[in-house]
């Protein structure tokens, strides 16, 4: 099938991500085979040429993320996808994309770790990895996490749109369960899908500044590509507004502040949560991605047993929805965060955002399987006592 797909399908999350990318206007994909993300590359190997795009299988994960950086500089919407140890490698290239404000999308279909772990099974160990894994700090990050095949499609498109609006790499933090689950997917007509195209400068090249260092919160900032006469200067070094390398404290401060604040000063555009049964809740369950499914089921079991339990799921997980969490913390006695890692990742953010207003508990697991609704329900009941 050529062109954009429209209609109702029964597909896996990985396929929804691939079609979401096509629908969003992505025309360059580069990847390296890794379970459970390789279906995205396989499908795009078929689909990209059909829509006139490029799909590359690179020699490694580093090459694939750097090549999408190159494609982004060439004016293309670009994406890569990986998992586990592949994501560790991707982080090397991520810094280059963040620092140069390159719009592109990185998909992480999380699997059980650390290291190779269990390639074919679910976990949620990369919540902090993607946010803090790129050496050097001095930046914020945007990441979205789907809980269904439909959301995998919708959020992939949103990732591309946010990448263009904020001119930065955006993560889709998926997981093996969502990546491999087959569910109903509705792909609307292209005219019904909101797409943000790359903004091009109106200023002539001699007046245009590639990096708006003097305004750390400006978004929707244009990004000319190579070959458009703007002489863009992209580099790994701290830069001036024109992109020239600099060792001046002034430039370092302004650049670091911009890479953080263009996201953190625009939180109103970056808060997206799912809330259920919170109105009268005395207990809240907060989680993300695949864990949200048994968690919501557990909340409904609790409700069925007359217990006032609510549910909140950050959809945009980075930046973390501090205010939404605080409001819940003010209201409830305690919060339970079930997630598929034993070190406690999102739970720390929930505890931080709660500012001591509620007790925060972790229900961890090394992954392979998601929690069962009963396990979460049992934990709620145990903690309530």
């Amino acid at each position, binding site marked *: 099938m050529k062109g954009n797909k429209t209609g109702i399908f029964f597909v896996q999350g990985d396929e929804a991500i691939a079609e979401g990318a096509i629908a969003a206007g992505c025309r360059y994909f580069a990847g390296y085979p890794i379970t459970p993300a390789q279906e995205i590359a396989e499908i795009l190997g078929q689909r990209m040429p059909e829509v*006139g795009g490029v799909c590359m299988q690179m020699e490694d994960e580093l090459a694939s993320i*750097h090549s999408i*950086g*190159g494609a982004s*500089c060439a004016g293309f919407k670009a994406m890569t996808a990986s998992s586990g140890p592949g994501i560790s490698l991707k982080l090397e290239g991520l810094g280059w994309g963040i620092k140069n404000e390159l719009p592109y999308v990185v998909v992480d279909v999380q699997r059980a770790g650390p290291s190779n772990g269990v390639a074919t099974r679910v976990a949620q160990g990369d919540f902090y990895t993607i946010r803090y894994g790129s050496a050097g700090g001095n930046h914020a990050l945007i990441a979205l996490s789907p809980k269904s095949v439909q959301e995998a499609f919708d959020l992939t498109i949103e990732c591309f749109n946010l990448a263009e609006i904020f001119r930065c790499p955006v993560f889709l933090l998926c997981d093996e369960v969502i990546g491999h689950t087959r569910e109903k997917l509705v792909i609307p007509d292209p005219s019904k899908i909101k797409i943000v195209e790359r903004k091009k400068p109106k200023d002539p090249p001699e007046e245009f500044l590639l990096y708006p260092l003097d305004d750390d919160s400006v978004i929707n900032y244009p990004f000319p590509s*190579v070959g458009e006469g703007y002489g863009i200067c992209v580099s*790994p*070094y701290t830069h001036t507004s024109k*992109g020239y390398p600099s060792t001046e404290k002034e430039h370092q401060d302004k650049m670091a502040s911009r890479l953080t604040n263009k996201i953190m000063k625009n939180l109103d555009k970056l808060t997206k949560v799912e809330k259920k049964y919170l109105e009268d809740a005395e207990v809240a369950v907060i989680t993300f991605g695949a864990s949200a499914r048994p968690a919501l089921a557990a909340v409904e079991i609790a409700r069925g047993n007359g217990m006032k339990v609510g549910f909140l799921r950050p959809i945009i997980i980075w930046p973390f929805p501090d205010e939404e969490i605080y409001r819940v913390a003010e209201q409830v006695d305690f919060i339970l965060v079930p997630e598929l890692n034993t070190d406690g990742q999102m739970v720390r953010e929930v505890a931080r955002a709660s500012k001591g207003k509620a007790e925060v508990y972790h229900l961890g697991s090394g992954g392979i399987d998601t929690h069962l609704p009963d396990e979460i329900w049992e934990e709620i009941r145990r903690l309530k006592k």
Partner: protein
Amino acid sequence: MTTVAKEFPLLHPLVTKYLRPERMPHLACAGCGIGQVLHCTLNAVDELGLTPLNTVWVQGVGCSSRLSYALWKGDSIDAHHGRIFAVGTGLKMCRPELNFILFTGDGDCAAIGGNHFIHACRRNLDVVALMFNNGIYGMTGGQVAPTTPLGATTTTTPHGNFEDPFDLCKVAEAAGASYVARWRATDFKPLTNSIKRGLQIKGFAFIEVLLACATNFGRYVLKTGDPREVQKWINDRVVTIKKAKNLSPEKLKDKILIGEFMRRERPGIVENYQSLLKRIKEV
């Protein structure tokens, strides 16, 4: 900073035509051949009538790249250490109509970027890669490189290098590059011609340039700070391909061949992908 150009009205016309005067003077140490290679590159660009509009410079990390970065009036894409071939692949696959000149060093290309380099040759990516080989890590201060001769003392091999060096031209040739050549920075005319040929030929053009680095190679390997002595060390080892044909293997031991090693027509990834797209469109 634009005052630099005014202060030096005698700046070479190629510099004012193709480079950003405000980025001059560049950072090269006294006696370094990088300026010479830039000159050869600009000559080739000028003779072929390329412009900052249709030509992009791509750099890695190291002396080779720091010197050429943000110097070209057109687009200048500087990659992480070793990643220029990956970035270059993304750029070229998306914008095949543009010319790409990649500046890399021996550390950038042979060490940290080695895998990407081999695959760029295999894919026969239609770009020109100039590898500046000074036999040592220059920018970080004289550490052993994959191109450092066996036995040489460097800051990280004070007891002598115990590894054999790489011959990157042989790697490029074996891996499938369309064009492979090696010259000294002082081989002004042949180097210029090679860059021109590399820009004209379809596929991957790999040109290695032997540079005399007095600051680090001179200091640590040859125990001299005099660029002329470093250049002499190179000159004593260099043999043209033509002359080498009449020399015995014993006489060629420890010699470095210069010349054009490979010139072939071999379809590359860009052409192959375009015909694939055409084929799919027709179905």
